[in-house]
């Protein structure tokens, strides 16, 4: 009897331990970044895991840079545009792919998936030419275009799956009520797709927000840069000094909005991931 109790306690201990390790692994880098950003540069290389007196000088210094504020504005604009564009295009595409029966539907879906397998670097030079030809070089629209290209396969696939799971009779009922395909999509299917839209939209937002390679390649001036590039280009007083404090403060400032977004929509995301049980 005691042996069984002991076993139970040990298992519980192991479980908690595993969770602790996982949590430490996931959260520690971010925690240390926050810690570093709150230290004055003089205390930067003293290793410590707790802070007695937070020092906000790094944040003040970052916020005083006009180019950084401009970069945040650019990032918000680009990410919001990408999400809006990608959701609109993928919703309409997913409606066609998930609902309308036509020859070659599976081929189209596989093509969409295939496109998403190319690494960014592989299409970089080609995309650069396209953007030059379109006259979009060094503008936010170059980023919106390229991010949308890379986001669409994912959003189309997820939304196609979700639309495919909604009962077909629902849409037919709307058609019997006199709804056009557009009305059936927006007034009947869309309200049921909200969790899926929030999930995919959030992931598209994060991808656009964090993207670095295209942002570095397709923009030239401070006026057009986005946050990841701006952070990378923050430089210290001399060539050999890396301003860790500033970098960390900037990183924390651009990460916190994402964390907040995820927390706000957390319930939606979870229900979005389990929307198979939609019935009646």
């Amino acid at each position: 009897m005691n042996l069984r109790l002991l076993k139970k306690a040990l298992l519980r201990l192991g479980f908690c331990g595993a969770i602790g390790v996982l949590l430490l692994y996931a959260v520690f880098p971010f925690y240390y970044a926050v810690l570093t950003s709150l230290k004055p540069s003089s205390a930067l290389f003293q290793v410590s895991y707790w802070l007695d007196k937070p020092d906000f000088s790094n944040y003040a210094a970052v916020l005083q840079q006009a180019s950084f504020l401009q970069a945040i504005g650019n990032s918000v604009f680009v990410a919001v545009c990408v999400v809006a564009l990608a959701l609109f295009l993928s919703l309409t595409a997913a409606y066609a792919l998930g609902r309308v029966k036509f020859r070659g539907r599976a081929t189209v879906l596989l093509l969409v998936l295939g496109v998403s397998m190319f690494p960014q670097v592989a299409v970089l030079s080609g995309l650069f030419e396209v953007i030059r030809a379109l006259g979009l070089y060094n503008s936010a629209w170059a980023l919106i275009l390229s991010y949308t290209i890379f986001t669409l396969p994912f959003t189309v696939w997820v939304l196609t799956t979700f639309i495919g799971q909604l009962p077909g009779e629902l849409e037919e009922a709307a058609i019997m009520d006199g709804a056009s395909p557009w009305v059936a999509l927006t007034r009947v299917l869309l309200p049921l797709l909200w969790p899926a839209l929030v999930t995919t939209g959030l992931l598209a937002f994060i991808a656009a927000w964090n993207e670095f390679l295209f942002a570095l390649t397709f923009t030239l001036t401070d006026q057009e840069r986005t946050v990841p590039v701006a952070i990378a280009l923050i430089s210290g007083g001399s060539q050999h000094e890396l301003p860790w404090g500033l970098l960390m403060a900037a990183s924390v400032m651009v990460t916190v909005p994402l964390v907040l977004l995820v927390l706000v929509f957390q319930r939606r995301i979870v229900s979005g991931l389990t929307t198979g049980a939609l019935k009646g």
Partner: protein
Amino acid sequence: MSKLKLDKVNKQLGGLRILRDISLEIASGEFVVFVGPSGCGKSTLLRLIAGLESICAGDLLIDGRRVNDLEPRERGVGMVFQSYALYPHMSVYDNIGFGLKLAKTEKRSLRERVLETARVLQLDKLLQRKPKELSGGQRQRVAMGRAMAREPDILLFDEPLSNLDAALRVQMRNEIARLHASLGTTMIYVTHDQVEAMTLADKIVVLNAGRIEQVGSPRELYERPVSRFVAGFLGSPRMNFLPARLLAPGAHSLIETPALGRLAALPFDSSALAANSPLSLGIRPEHLALQKAPGDAGLRVVGVEYLGCETYVHLDVGEDEPLICRCAATAEWRQGDRVELQPELANLHLFDADGNALPRHPTPDAATLRALAQGYA
């Protein structure tokens, strides 16, 4: 003029012929039920009428107007779906009013129509609820309300009661019958439940493998099935079929079956067939009377099912399936008893080798039958 007319309607899907040359007329205000085994095309036929599926060949006319290429909303039909398909994010009021809203109905008359529909279906108190807060029967009524709200000339039902439990099904069946009586709308109803078909229909259409087997009133179909398929499909327990042989073709048939021996002077015209043709004799369980057989003669009772109101007695006739006989609940047959069968000759059915019913003499009254029997003897 007929309300709805199908003229040689065909439906093909990827080389598979789902419906073949369906021709049918439905009168205004009629309650028509499509029945058939699963996969017979009854739901597809309903969806063709609704406009949810396209017609490959043939014409569909509503009020004399060809509607093949019209959108569902232009046809003046409403449909109740099997899974109800209520809009989960809308209240009952919005579910019923959705079609009216899309038709740009003026707000006041929309409200009146929704309230009136709700009143007819006794949904008045539930108008602000969401579908998930309703019971099965209530959802069913909302689905009907949504189909009725736009006041269509034709109401279509696609197995509307199959998701309900048995008690509720009977209740909703009566409600649909009441609704039909009070609205007078033409209704077309698809089901595989023959009780629903028999009780609701003015006219039953039996479909099999994409074809119409027979159209007629429930009584016609039950008493005068034109084929073995219809005879076996309607009725529970189903009609017994015994293999038989035609001894003497003629205006009145003389046949022999292993189980029943010779049956003479049957009211069927078999002059088109050759002697010794194989036939199939159909007897409904209620058209058999049992009598105790002496000794080892007759047929052996292999099973007795007591149902309270009646008893089904199963008899061994040397076939795969036993012969089923419907007896009074007070009958006291036991397994192993030997019995003799006394079929009601006027209520027998005779089918040829292709399953078609042999032509039957009109109104065979008892006197002529007796005279004929004496003639043979």
